[in-house]
């Protein structure tokens, strides 16, 4: 239902998102995984037409067959009011502290669906029920500070569902929440996606949450796609060294007990993400990659097919095994 072709975003200091192509089918659940600054949010914002004016967006984008490449703000607003929706990371700051949450959810209904105040209130109430908000009747007239983090995130999901979107983008919806609340929110998103046949783009740096939620994963690093593939295949047999590093860095429940030689440290990917202007010109992961080759830092690897998906790694072309070492 949404197709991005060669989408790229450039900032004043250089490219922030490299040419990226991506398609989502109706009702499909796709995850984007990556560290901070990997371009996940930028990719999501470009799908909403909400990239800051200071950045330039290039490439083609079409939503449900409608070409949005040269669309103006009014066209995007039309889509955001009806087909596209987004839930943001911080439920604490994503609600206006001076507005009753019921009014916040009712506003787009009144504006876009032509509801009366009473109809909008009734619809907001049913949305609150659908998103599992406790005591929904009373919540309608409460202010954000009276709600817990999980309840606020549910309100934001209700707001995003108000227009019956065909695509819901959830940008790290659980990062600010407790583990247990986060689990409930991810399950809620999956349930809503199934029940409404709504495509879900789940953005997170939490691999466990993404694997629970999605059918397909896109791994991003430094504003570039590293690897794509079905969730199960990626979790079990990653091809790209970056994905392997990410998976190895997951805490394992039994590791401390099973470990025979005393304390074991959690494996990490050495180094940290360089600022956008210092990223290598070739593969973005060069410099931190354990299986780097001489031309990795200068030549950008193409996304090539693996057994299950695609990966952008010179090792793939070199030995066809995704940098087995």
């Amino acid at each position: 239902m949404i197709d991005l072709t060669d989408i790229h975003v450039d900032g004043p200091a250089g490219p922030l998102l490299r040419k990226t192509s991506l398609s989502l089918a109706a009702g499909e659940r796709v995850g984007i995984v990556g560290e901070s600054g990997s371009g996940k949010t930028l990719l999501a914002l470009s799908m909403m037409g909400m990239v800051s004016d200071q950045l330039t967006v290039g490439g083609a984008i079409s939503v449900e067959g409608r070409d949005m490449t040269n669309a103006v703000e009014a066209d995007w607003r039309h889509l955001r009011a009806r087909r596209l929706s987004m839930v943001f990371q911080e439920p604490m700051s994503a609600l206006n502290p001076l507005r009753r949450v019921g009014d916040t959810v009712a506003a787009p209904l009144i504006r876009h669906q032509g509801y009366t105040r009473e109809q909008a209130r009734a619809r907001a109430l049913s949305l609150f029920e659908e998103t599992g908000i406790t005591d929904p009747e009373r919540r309608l007239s409460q202010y954000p500070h009276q709600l817990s983090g999980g309840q606020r995130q549910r309100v934001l999901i209700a707001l995003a569902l108000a227009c019956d979107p065909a695509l819901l983008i959830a940008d790290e919806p659980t990062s600010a929440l407790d583990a247990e609340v986060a689990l409930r929110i991810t399950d809620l998103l999956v349930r809503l996606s199934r029940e409404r046949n709504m495509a879900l783009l789940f953005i997170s740096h939490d691999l466990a949450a993404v694997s629970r939620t999605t059918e397909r994963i896109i791994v991003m690093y430094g504003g570039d796609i590293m690897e794509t593939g079905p969730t199960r295949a990626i979790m079990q047999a990653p091809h790209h060294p970056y994905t392997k590093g990410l998976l190895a860095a997951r805490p394992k429940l039994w590791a401390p007990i099973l470990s025979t030689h005393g304390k074991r440290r959690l494996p990490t990917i050495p180094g940290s993400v360089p600022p956008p202007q210092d990223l290598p010109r070739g593969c973005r992961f060069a410099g931190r990659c354990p299986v780097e080759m001489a031309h990795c830092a200068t030549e950008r690897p193409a996304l090539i097919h693996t057994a299950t998906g695609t990966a952008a790694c010179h090792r793939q072309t070199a030995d066809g095994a995704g940098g087995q070492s």
Partner: protein
Amino acid sequence: MRRLPVNLLIGGVLVALVVAAAMLSVIWTPHPYAAMDIPNKFAPPSPAHWLGTDQLGRDLVSQLMVAAGNSMMVALLAVSIGAVLGTILGMVAAARGGWTEEAIMRLSDLGFAFPTLLFAIMLAAAFGPSLTVVVVAIAFINIPTFARVARAAARQVWHRDYVYAARAAGMNRFAISRDHILPNIAAPVIVQATIEFAVAILTEAALSYLGLGAQPPAPSWGRMLSEAQTLMYLAPQLAIWPGLCIFIAVLGFGLLGDGLRDLSDPRLGQRRSHD
């Protein structure tokens, strides 16, 4: 509960005093303010005339009270008009950005270049001196001030997450400005309005002193001051009392504005540290 700032308390008491006197003057004054009693001129304070009488035997307390009402009315009208128009312009500038913002802000720079007194003199020359001229002059001069305050505050609010959430829900700039921006910039605008209120009282007094404002017999602190000037050696109290009134009103609103700012700033600081 946190203790209220001292300046807020003092300012509040002074403002309450002035406003109470002004409101009371509408229904009751000790004497009719314009009633002359020539044989009884320059009377010292007495139970009948609490602060005595002026050169025409008019009761000083009554005049000061009615003058307070005039002063409040001028300041209220002028600051309200300036605040509403300025805030709207500032919000439009922040919402639209680009050349619209540039045009509005450069025009308001131009507005800042006009000294209030000069502008009022120009208006008075064209339309004749009156309190209306004073209101228009002060309101006009206030527009750019409020445009700047509103735009600066609104620009910050436009980058808040809940504005992004509203945009993601397809709300347009007008609806976002009304529902999200305005309530969240109200605090700095109100603080500014209180401070501008003090400035407006002073400006009205200055213009009336120059004879551009309230026309006789309408009493005004500024005009009472200028009439008392020639009698300074004969009856200094005629200049002291209106001067004191101006002082109390300006100080009161100034302290109140400062106090309101103190009240809203630390709270903003707290909110930031929670993020």
